[in-house]
């Protein structure tokens, strides 16, 4: 395990470098820079040039790239051009709501999706299964921005007292915070439930035909024990992977859901920083998101080995 972990971490370094290069390249190709947006158009060109000089925007591409990456290596994300705040502290401020939303959506997905998936599999060829399968396809086909907008519409038409406009952090008022987060969480959760349910169903169906299940049944075990002790424990492994890998998808969903519900999270920070051409902020946020995505993928792989002892990474790595 240790060797495997080390190799995985080592392999992540070139990927991470590639990621920084792509982010830096893309950000630098965004037409128009912060100086154009900050200053009036009729300002003298010398003033604009001086501002570019102080912001180091006039240096060559690779010099700026090196400055940025060498800063990242020691945890220095730089400073926002717009408000002069350190980028990292801004990211950490906005990190909470996004993480909370992702956790809510994942919990909803697991807690509702797995039981429904098992039900669907055990009812194969029955109407229940057909219904659940169709609902699952509908669930991950619905666009989250539309569901979110519909939620807001229903609230504003029928429940005018429901709190949605002002975001309150969890640490200040947990109850109010959860109330505010319930609708965005549900919006993201619908797709998650649908996907987890689908994966659980197909995974259970595969395991239920395995010989050890027939053995368990033929030795007279209660069907419930067979289902929970033999089938489910083996069937949940791919589901864990799915839940982990869906995290990237969740981050994408966060951008949209945060925009719809006005939640100050990382997704909004991405859109805001791109629209303001605040390069250090764009670079920092996108790098942070890509980094967390990589870390989560790594954790999923490790977790995978922990739950399934049949998988031995040392052998594979050799």
């Amino acid at each position: 395990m240790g060797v495997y972990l080390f190799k995985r971490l080592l392999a992540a370094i070139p990927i991470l470098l590639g990621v920084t290069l792509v982010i830096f390249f893309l950000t630098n190709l965004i037409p128009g820079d912060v100086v154009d947006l900050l200053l009036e158009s009729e300002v003298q060109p010398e003033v604009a040039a001086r501002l570019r000089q102080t912001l180091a925007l006039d240096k060559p591409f690779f010099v700026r790239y090196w400055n940025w990456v060498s800063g990242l290596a020691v945890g220095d994300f730089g400073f926002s051009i717009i408000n002069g705040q350190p980028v990292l502290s801004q990211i950490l401020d906005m990190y909470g709501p996004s993480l909370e939303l992702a956790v809510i959506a994942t919990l909803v997905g697991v807690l509702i999706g797995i039981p429904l998936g098992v039900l669907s599999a055990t009812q194969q060829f029955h109407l229940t299964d057909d219904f659940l399968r169709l609902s699952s396809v509908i669930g991950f086909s619905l666009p989250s921005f539309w569901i979110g907008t519909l939620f807001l519409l229903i609230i504003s038409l029928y429940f005018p007292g429901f709190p949605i406009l002002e975001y309150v952090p969890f640490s200040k008022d947990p109850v109010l915070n959860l109330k505010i987060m319930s609708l965005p969480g549900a919006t993201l959760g619908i797709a998650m439930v649908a996907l987890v349910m689908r994966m659980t169903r197909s995974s259970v169906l595969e395991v239920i035909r395995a010989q050890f299940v027939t053995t368990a049944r033929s030795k007279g075990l209660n069907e419930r024990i067979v289902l929970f002790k033999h089938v489910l424990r083996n069937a949940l492994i791919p589901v864990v992977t799915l839940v982990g890998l869906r995290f990237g998808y969740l981050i994408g969903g966060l951008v949209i859901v945060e925009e719809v519900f006005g939640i100050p999270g990382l997704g909004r920070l991405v859109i805001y920083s791109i629209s303001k051409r605040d390069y250090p902020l764009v670079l920092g946020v996108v790098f942070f998101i890509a980094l967390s995505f990589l870390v989560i993928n790594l954790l999923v792989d490790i977790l995978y080995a922990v739950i399934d002892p049949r998988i031995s990474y040392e052998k594979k790595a050799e």
Partner: protein
Amino acid sequence: MRSSTRGFRTRRRRNKVQKPVSQFKNFNVGGIEEPARNFTGWKKILFLRRLFRNKFSSAGLIVTLAAVGIALLAPILAPHSPVEMSPLAISPPSSEYPLGTDYLGRCLLSRIIYGARVSLGVAMSSVAIALSLGIILGLLAGYYEGALGGAIMRGMDIILSFPLVILALGIIAMLGPSMTNLIITIGVVYTPTFVRLVNGSVLSVKRNEYVVAARALGSRDVRILALHVLPNIVAPIIVQASLTFSTAILVESALSFLGMGTQPPTPSWGGMISESRMMMELAPWTVIYPGIFLSVTVIGLNLLGDGLRDAFDQFLKN
């Protein structure tokens, strides 16, 4: 492997054997079975029967065909021009305007019908980009492996380490929001999925006897790839393309919703929902109907994609 192929080719030239392979074009060489060559006549009919015995995939096909029909026949079906404004702003559904009008007095039904052109057109073009790039890069990476394959696959790893929506936002910010750039962006972000799929299939197919036989007969690499490898990996590619098509529609509408995609006044389903949000309490139909068309189209495509996958799976099992 590559060098041996070259060896055969040069020997063939030296001996001046003319077109030695073409006569085998439609035969099984030396009794070697090639799955794709067997997929003819009654087997195709069996496959289609299997696909449409399933009520879900039949429903999916009907919805898909209807959506394509609406998009193609937009000028005939639409009662009004999609951009023409009338003094009747936000009027509820009536006989003149079957789904009502939006905040600028434009006929909602006509905008939805023309919006189908935009949504399906953008999705189709971007899937075409992702598909062609993915097949070319995937074939190269899978067939030649080595440094070229490694470089291609690592590049794809880097693209995949970004959450899709974040990467799409970055690229579109760089290119500037427009329909063409939206097509390019979605095409690029979905390319790695196809590259991985094609690469994996090529790796498993290229060890088969029929590929070795083709090489032994002195076929060029291009011929082997086009006539022996590609036809035998086409099933998973079709399935993936149909499922990607539906998510591409979702991404297109989400980016248009965020104001980064199709620009007004061009009607797109995501953009229409975004524009109508301000007035949604007064005119709920302006956010509800475009969303219904969007959702139903995506559901239909997903059902069709699922059906295709199941039918191919069963077919390959038998």
